[in-house]
């Protein structure tokens, strides 16, 4: 059984790593409007990460604050799902990742808002509105790219196929957790099926199901992401703006 600390850390790490990846688009997005949108979403994720990691640090009771957890752990100590650490790829891959993440986070935060843990409930209540917008944003792009030109359809379908295997890890059962991820699968499937159908995309068959993120076993991509995210804090401990 995972502890409440591990659970909260996992959710916080999902948001933190997602924020860092989305931040890579800043000044590189296809158009200025999208640049701002992705930065906004990244900051939403960062905001949730800060609340979750702060709470995780308090649960642990070892004196680690959000910065200690974000900047002073190595990849094997991170508990995020593999989905968020995958490279951004092209814009279609980024949108596929964001779409699946938001389709998972929205029912997750909604359920957390009604869970027995007061702090997690408050975080869920705040984050679910943000997730609803992330889902809206990603859905619109998945539909437009999927039901767009021949080339955009090809790339969006390829992106969905590339990312799909990593969605299964999100719903690994944890019956003792405040919200058992397995209970979110039905909402996720309903949402994904509806958007993919409208986007004229095909949902890939379930086959390979990579996992391990919740146990600290990550892809090689996470170390590079952490190196960039942590270098300043490690070189100048406690640095502030």
């Amino acid at each position, binding site marked *: 059984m995972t502890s409440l600390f591990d659970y909260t850390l996992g959710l916080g790490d999902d948001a933190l790593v997602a924020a860092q990846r989305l931040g890579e688009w800043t000044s590189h997005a296809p*158009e*200025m*409007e*999208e640049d*701002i*949108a992705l930065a*906004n979403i990244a900051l939403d994720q960062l905001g949730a990460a800060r609340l979750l990691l702060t709470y995780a640090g308090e649960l642990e009771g070892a004196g680690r604050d959000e910065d200690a957890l974000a900047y002073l752990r190595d990849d094997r100590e991170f508990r995020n799902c593999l989905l968020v650490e995958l490279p951004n790829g092209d814009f279609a891959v980024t949108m596929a990742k964001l779409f699946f993440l938001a389709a998972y986070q929205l029912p997750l935060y909604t359920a957390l808002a009604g869970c027995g843990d007061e702090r997690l409930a408050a975080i869920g209540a705040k984050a679910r509105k943000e997730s609803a917008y992330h889902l*809206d*944003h990603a859905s*619109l792009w998945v539909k*437009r790219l999927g039901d767009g030109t021949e080339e955009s359809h090809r790339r969006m379908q390829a992106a969905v196929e590339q990312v799909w295997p990593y969605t299964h890890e999100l719903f690994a059962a944890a019956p003792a957790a405040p919200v058992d991820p397995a209970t979110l699968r039905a909402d996720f499937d309903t949402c994904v099926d509806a958007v993919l159908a409208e986007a004229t995309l095909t949902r890939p068959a379930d086959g390979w199901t990579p996992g391990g993120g919740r146990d600290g076993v990550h892809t090689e991509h996470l170390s590079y992401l952490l190196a960039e995210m942590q270098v300043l804090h490690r070189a100048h401990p406690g640095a502030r703006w």
Partner: protein
Amino acid sequence: MRARRGLSHTHVGSLHAPDAELALRNARDLYTRRQEGVSIWVVPASAITASSPDEKDAFFDPAADKVYRHPTFYPVPDGVAHL
């Protein structure tokens, strides 16, 4: 953009978008980051008919000397913020 209920929409800027639905979202992302508004309208630039700077004289100057059109002959009550 309507800043808050009771005020009228005011032009806040222009942006690029492939269609109206995304234009609305782009406007939300660009112009409501600091709680600037509670309602957004988007209008395609092609749908706007604008007065021409060349016609400025004929359009606007004739109003200059018609002082009787201005509501300046009565006192404004205190506390009326948006008259």
